[in-house]
């Protein structure tokens, strides 16, 4: 693959896709809640083209960063058009040729492109259009025609190939709202475990990551970040790098500082050596008291549900249980430090970026360079797995600024510290629960309140200040205006899984929560974070589900009920019930009403099992997970031994890809539950590399994982990449309780915390005996 980028574009369909740059105003809103681009998603030609050699090029606005969507989207096109997958060429996220589908995130790619709209609808429209053309050409009614391998065959055996009908020509058709998807029962490519298309190139070292993009005349850049949040540049001593060989320029723009050199080594040396005097920022709140701090800050409040009777019901309940859960800041922590390449010329700019948001990145780059968006082209090239908003966006902005400053293409490579000290962290949260049980053990009222630390986010189309680069250039992050909550209105919104699955979820006269608890309240306080935050895989869903599902287990223990039975008693959502039953069955779950710990208190290592379930984002995927763990009572070490998960995400595009995502999600969730936590001192983030930020390396003895898919008939496809991770911390916490009788309410479950919880439990037992 040594062709230039330009040849690549020409070879892949610029002949066919129309360019109408600049026709639409960048302020208009498109169908994805995005700005309209020059590529009209209502037109078939924007999504798909048939070439004269029979190759089908598809243009998708959802990109693959390791989650398998490249293969799945290729399967979708092959399936709908009845061609072998090898004849599909997929172009993903290039603002000059693909439709604007916003950001590839939030487990939205599958619901967006695999149901009855967008890419799926385009493919179905194309198939019907080809059949119609063939009918005319062969002089036969469409109903008599069959398709196979890119050939349409008439009743009399006459054949016509797609490329003979429309090779290298536009369809000139709108997407047809009535175009029918091929029935899942007939699928031969979609729904099958097709080996991921990138694997041979990956395993043999041939795959092109953004780190490998090379442009003629390219220089190398590094950034020099501030020593702590809020610091500003006082003075930059350019003399300090005067001796660096091949240094091209020191670039300073407000508080943005970077260096550009002929070689990567030169840039790295210069960045390390450059003497910058900074005016310090304010002190950070102390980490050990951070959650108390968080709960005292001014907040923007939101009520997701409020039945209005919660205090009265809690007062009337036979017993009231309270608990407070905390979840730390965690990192995306990509293995590869982020990288981007930019080529900024006065007439236009090109950025090769691993961003999940090609079009939004285009708008932000345009803003930072003071160029119209249609003069900027963003080409997605895979980076290191990101799991959300890692450094890819900031690196892309940095590369563009450096390239503009030197007038040559620049490859920007972050250092490990640039990546880990300045990424948008997963939010720290506190959740406080209060619930009342009736005499019969059923939950009659549940009140939950959470505090979320938030600053910045994805930059979107117009918020550069949401990530570090924008802030350094003087842009503010989107504001959090403190305000009290209004009563919930409209319909239940549970995108962050604030509302537990057991709530009736009654809003505006409709109860869509999926549970039985009718005295309910869920109040969220969003507080300004001292660090940037952003969507880390299962954003807020994992935090909330950890707190909700562990507390549900506490209520279950109080009611002396079995954790599966107790959940079923409070559930009405058939899909959550479905996965819960399936996981329990597959795991060989045996009902018992007391923690196993009660039976074997004296052993050195004790075992237990726990369960947790979720309706991801309320209705975007369903999972139940059984964890089996060993706990070493002397060291406090927790060892997960086995996970059994049941997953319902509707029709599955690629079972092997889904298994891969599910296994990785559980293990990543296990790492986050057991060891991951951002640390800081009074000035800065101190977990700045792999010595200081804990994660599980490949030497960790991994548990066995069993995956069961539950697929009800006639349901749409949902997201699946974030469901498994969402339930993992809670399932482990509940298994630790089962094993030891000790409840862990603070993540991660470090040995020290486990030992403290064991001691706490022992004290309670002693008191109970006295």
């Amino acid at each position: 693959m040594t062709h230039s980028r330009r040849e690549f574009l020409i070879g892949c369909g610029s002949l066919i896709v129309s360019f109408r740059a600049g026709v639409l105003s960048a302020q208009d809103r498109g169908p994805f809640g995005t700005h309209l681009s020059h590529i009209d998603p209502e037109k078939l030609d924007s999504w798909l083209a048939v070439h004269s050699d029979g190759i089908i090029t598809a243009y998708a606005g959802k990109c693959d960063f390791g989650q398998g969507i490249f293969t799945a989207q290729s399967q979708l096109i092959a399936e709908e058009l009845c061609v072998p997958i090898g004849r599909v060429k997929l172009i993903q996220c290039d603002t000059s040729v693909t439709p604007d589908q916003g950001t590839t995130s939030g487990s939205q790619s599958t619901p967006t492109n695999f149901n009855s709209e967008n890419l799926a609808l385009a493919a179905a429209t194309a198939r019907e259009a080809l059949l119609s053309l063939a009918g005319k050409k062969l002089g036969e009614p469409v109903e008599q025609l069959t398709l196979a391998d890119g050939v349409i065959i008439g009743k009399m055996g006459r054949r016509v190939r797609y490329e003979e009908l429309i090779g290298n020509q536009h369809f000139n058709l709108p997407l047809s709202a009535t175009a029918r998807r091929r029935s899942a029962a007939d699928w031969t490519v979609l729904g099958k475990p097709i080996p991921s298309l990138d694997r041979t190139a990956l395993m043999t070292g041939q795959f092109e990551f953004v780190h490998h993009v090379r442009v003629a005349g390219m220089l190398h850049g590094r950034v020099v970040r501030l020593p702590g949040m809020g610091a500003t540049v006082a003075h930059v001593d350019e003399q300090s790098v005067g001796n660096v060989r091949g240094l091209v320029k020191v670039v300073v723009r407000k508080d943005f500082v970077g260096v550009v050199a002929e070689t990567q080594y030169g840039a790295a040396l210069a960045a390390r050596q450059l003497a910058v005097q900074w005016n310090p920022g304010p002190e950070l709140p102390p980490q050990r008291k951070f959650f108390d701090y968080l709960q005292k800050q001014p907040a923007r409040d939101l009520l997701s549900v409020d039945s209005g009777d919660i205090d009265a019901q809690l007062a009337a309940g036979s017993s009231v249980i309270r608990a407070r859960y905390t979840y730390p800041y965690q990192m995306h922590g990509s293995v590869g430090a982020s990288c981007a390449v930019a080529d900024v010329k006065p007439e236009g700019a090109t950025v090769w970026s691993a961003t999940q948001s090609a079009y939004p990145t285009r708008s932000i780059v345009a803003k930072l360079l003071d160029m119209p968006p249609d003069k900027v082209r963003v080409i997605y090239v895979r980076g290191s797995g990101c799991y959300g908003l890692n450094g890819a966006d900031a690196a892309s902005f940095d590369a563009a600024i450096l390239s503009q400053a030197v007038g040559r293409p620049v490859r920007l490579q972050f250092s490990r510290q640039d990546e880990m000290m300045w990424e948008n962290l997963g939010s720290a949260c506190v959740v406080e629960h209060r619930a009342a049980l009736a005499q019969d053990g059923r939950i009659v009222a549940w009140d939950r309140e959470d505090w979320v630390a938030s600053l910045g986010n994805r930059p979107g189309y117009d918020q550069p200040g949401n990530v570090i680069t924008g802030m350094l250039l003087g842009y503010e992050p989107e504001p959090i205006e403190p305000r009290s909550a209004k009563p919930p209105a409209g319909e239940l919104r549970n995108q962050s899984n604030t509302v537990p699955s057991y709530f009736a979820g009654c809003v505006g006269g409709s109860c869509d929560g999926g549970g039985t608890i009718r005295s309910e309240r869920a109040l969220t306080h969003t507080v300004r974070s001292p660090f940037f935050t952003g969507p880390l895989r299962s954003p807020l869903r994992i935090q909330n589900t950890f707190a909700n599902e562990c507390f549900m287990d506490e209520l279950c223990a109080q009611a002396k009920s079995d954790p599966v039975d107790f959940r079923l008693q409070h559930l009405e959502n058939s899909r959550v019930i479905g996965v819960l039953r399936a996981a329990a069955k597959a795991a060989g779950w045996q009902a018992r009403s007391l923690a196993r710990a009660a039976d074997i208190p004296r052993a050195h290592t004790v075992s237990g099992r726990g369960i947790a379930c979720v309706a991801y984002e309320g209705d975007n995927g369903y999972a139940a997970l059984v964890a089996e763990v060993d706990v070493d009572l002397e060291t406090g070490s927790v060892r997960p031994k086995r996970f059994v998960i049941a997953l319902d995400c509707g029709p599955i595009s690629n079972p092997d890809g889904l298994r891969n995502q599910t296994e990785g999600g559980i293990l990543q969730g296990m790492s986050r539950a057991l060891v991951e936590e951002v640390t800081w001192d009074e000035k800065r983030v101190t977990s700045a590399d792999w010595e200081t930020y804990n994660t599980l390396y490949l030497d960790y003895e991994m548990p066995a994982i069993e995956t069961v898919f539950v697929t009800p008939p006639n349901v749409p496809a949902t997201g699946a990449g974030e469901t498994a991770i969402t339930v993992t911390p809670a399932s482990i916490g509940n298994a630790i309780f089962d094993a030891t009788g000790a409840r862990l309410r603070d993540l991660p479950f470090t040995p020290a915390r486990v030992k403290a919880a064991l001691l706490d439990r022992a004290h309670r037992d002693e008191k109970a005996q006295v």
Partner: protein
Amino acid sequence: MSEITLNVNGKQHALAVDPETPLLFVLSDELGLRGPRFGCGMAQCGACTVIMRGQVVRSCVMPLKAVGQNEVTTLEGLGTPEKPHPIQQAFIDEGAAQCGFCLSGVILTAKAVLDVKPDASDQEIRDALGGVLCRCFAHTRMLRAIRKYAEARGA
């Protein structure tokens, strides 16, 4: 700057590069190789791994001058897409990756330990992988692929 000769994947390269330059930058920028990648620059993650004298080396912290006449093997030096090395084939068969950024560390480290000790136990293989990081957590598939390769190799 004097010229330095570097042996990589069976080919000799004459390079005019600062001898202090980390080997990784030379492999990436001068030779255009894609196997070894910049992960941390601190020998903490393994993404830049290459093999030298049968040992795994973190090329991000090894200056070019320390390589001498030693043959350097990168991930692309093992096999090609048309003819992958058996350990690469095992990873292909198992689909043992997600983003794939870490693969040089995983595949080359496993190969190196099995070259020295073909009957290495699972524990010994894991111990060898102690400094190798995969943040997608494709661990289960990776260890299955390595086990499969080890068994086929021993047979």
